[in-house]
């Protein structure tokens, strides 16, 4: 045991009443090799018994872990990931409930038609009827989910330019948010190769390919962008590669600098035109 290592002990020069510097000592500390810390702490005078030592250590590591866990997770890009996933959850639930509503209401009106017309018939004929009140409340629920989804979409639209301006500009706010969410954060997205970004959201197809059962997927969730979905089939692979290349540059600029870079966007459009005109020549 050398003096230098004693200086690395988590309890070295630690004020037992100062939780913050305790958390920092736990979190940022460093030592090349472990030692018999409980005995050293008693020798050093930090604790008088092993029980006291472990009890202090438990409390401090507990507080430090809670503090740093929440600091790592309450970042803007994670909030956006939650928001876009909630949008997707709302959409799915909306779809299911509206299918259910149509079927249920159809039992009463006897014709397939839009929900508002059916509801009008229902409220004329069966108002305050104890069998139909559940249909009305299902409809209310649906309206409320739909408006909450729209509010979340506006939240994403207003936040994305601050979180990832280039990605937002290039992919649109929702796709940009989806990419961040799939990658597990802006940092991870920025550090992924563009070939990975290209197939984010197509993991099943990708792993089938890696196991040798299938061809490689051309695109994942970036397919939803019109650069790809509105282009001819035989160009989509090329376009997806070009698009994801620029998207990953955009993510890197967003993560490391955060300034909007207009040139990047004109570059992409030029490249897309190039691919499309080349395609026509063939």
């Amino acid at each position, binding site marked *: 045991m050398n003096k230098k290592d004693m200086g690395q002990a988590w309890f070295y020069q630690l004020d037992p009443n100062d939780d913050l510097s305790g958390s920092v000592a736990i979190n940022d500390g460093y030592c090349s090799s*472990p030692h018999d810390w409980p005995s050293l702490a008693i020798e050093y005078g930090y604790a008088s018994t092993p029980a006291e030592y472990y009890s202090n*250590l438990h409390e401090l*590591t507990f507080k430090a*872990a809670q503090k740093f*866990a929440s600091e790592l997770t309450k970042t803007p890009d994670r909030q956006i990931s939650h928001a876009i996933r909630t949008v997707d959850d709302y959409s799915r639930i909306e779809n299911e409930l509206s299918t259910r509503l149509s079927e249920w209401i159809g039992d009463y009106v006897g014709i397939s038609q839009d929900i508002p017309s059916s509801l009008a018939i229902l409220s004329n004929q069966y108002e305050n009827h104890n069998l139909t009140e559940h249909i009305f409340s299902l409809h209310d629920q649906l309206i409320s989910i739909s408006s909450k989804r729209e509010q979340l979409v506006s939240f994403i639209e207003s936040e994305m330019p601050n979180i990832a301006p280039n990605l937002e500009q290039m992919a649109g706010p929702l796709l940009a948010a989806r990419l961040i969410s799939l990658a597990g954060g802006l940092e991870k997205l920025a550090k992924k190769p563009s070939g990975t970004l290209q197939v984010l959201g197509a993991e099943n197809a990708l*792993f089938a390919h*890696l196991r040798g059962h299938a061809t490689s997927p051309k695109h994942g969730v970036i397919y939803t962008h019109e650069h790809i979905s509105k282009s001819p089939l035989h160009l989509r692979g090329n376009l997806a590669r070009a698009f994801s290349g620029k998207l990953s540059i955009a993510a890197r600029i967003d993560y490391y600098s955060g300034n909007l870079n207009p040139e990047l966007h004109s570059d992409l459009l030029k490249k897309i035109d190039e691919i499309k005109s080349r395609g026509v020549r063939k």
Partner: protein
Amino acid sequence: MNASPSYKYLSIQGKRYIVTKGPPVYGELTKDGWRQWDSSRSKLGSILSQNIEVGLCPNVKVLYLGAANGTTVSHVADIASIVYAVEFSPQPMRDLLNVSRSRTNIIPLLKDARRPETYSHIVESNLDLLIQDVATRGQVKTAIDNKKFLSSTGKLFLVIKARSETATAPPDAVFKQSLEQLSKEYNILLTQKLTSDHKDHLAILAEPLP
């Protein structure tokens, strides 16, 4: 039947389970203060229920790498005197902290098991048991890098997840290579493939080579 008084078999609702004594954590069955160690949710529980000894007994001090939600850690802490529980990811750490609330012998550490120098200023030397269940590449290297916490008579209980090393190579090839690599630093006492609840996992019991 196990000689250790710290975990045992108990019949609950007509079925025999391995159990430990402590406050319940995850909705497991309980009887007279004993709680079922669900072997479909815990690889260590699965191994112990096959009557394999790993050196988990009262008063041992444990370093647990890959503590996750604290399901297994909670049982280990029911037995051991101190459990240093390392978990890298903040979300499972929330659950682990909740478990540590009722078990003050757990030392929760939000750290990367691949970088032992970042917790060597906290975790003591000469530990009795190193349990490792991490889902990352380089699992054997992690076990080797953390060998310095073990006493010369300590034991390593390591679970290799083939799928964490690579998604493409066959698991058996991954296991073979892992064992070769591990045997440079550890004397391998036992290997055991896990049951269908834990597919493509190999449990290894080993002791550190001097």
